[in-house]
């Protein structure tokens, strides 16, 4: 039945957004993770990506979390001479995570997740209506 297919597609959307939220959570949680020594790199922001592919078992185009790549933008620096990871001049490299960007990404993930949930709800009601024919 096609409506069940639709449920699978939406579920793949939920799963993908779920994975994206996990990456965002990692980024936000590690927004202040510096290295231990001046040579260590701080946490590097991760960027999730989505890929769509035709799922033969489902028979429709589903979405999944693709390769998680790293943000190659330069790290931020703060002046904190007493920090164990500070270099000779007293600067500490901090992660290239911008919490504002992460928050916006999180909102987007949330909206997309809700959209998929709404489709599931709509599909569920359609299935229910079909079953109601039997009751008539």
């Amino acid at each position: 039945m096609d409506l069940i297919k639709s449920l699978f597609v939406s579920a793949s959307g939920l799963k993908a957004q779920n994975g994206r939220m996990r990456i965002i959570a990692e980024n936000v949680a590690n927004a202040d993770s510096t290295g231990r020594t001046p040579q260590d790199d701080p946490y590097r922001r991760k960027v999730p990506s989505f890929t769509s592919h035709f799922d033969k078992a489902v028979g429709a185009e589903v979405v999944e979390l693709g390769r998680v790549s790293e943000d190659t933008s330069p790290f931020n620096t703060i002046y904190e001479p007493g920090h164990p990871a500070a270099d000779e001049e007293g600067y500490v490299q901090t992660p290239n995570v911008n919490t504002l960007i992460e928050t916006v990404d999180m909102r987007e993930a949330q909206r997309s997740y809700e959209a998929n949930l709404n489709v599931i709800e709509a599909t569920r009601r359609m299935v229910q209506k079909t079953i109601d024919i039997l009751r008539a």
Partner: protein
Amino acid sequence: MVNHMALTDLPVFQALKSKMQWHQTRQVVLAENIANADTPHYEAKELKDYSFSDHIGRQEFGISTKTTASGHITGTLSADGNGVEQKKDMFEVTPNGNNVVLEEQMMKVTENQMDFQAATSLYTKSLGLIRTALSKT
């Protein structure tokens, strides 16, 4: 030509069944669009608009009573030229722009759901009509 047919082969049921199948297929396409709303290079898809004439071919049919014993009366009911039969469910998927507008897709999902409900309600009502015709009182 008179074929024996099931109750649900009546033109109205055939037409509604075909429409309901179209809505189901559309729901999958819309679900794909929404699931892929954040996928790079994904192009929103949409079904070709539904029209009964696209999916339905005319066919003559009717109903006749069976005579199982001598003395039974034969009765025929024919629906000449008014009968419609579904040929095959092939709904055309056409690319539509190059991006998914979530709001637009959500509107379409709601619309699809409502139209589907209209079709199922009509189906139920039609069944009710048959039931009325079959009932004694």
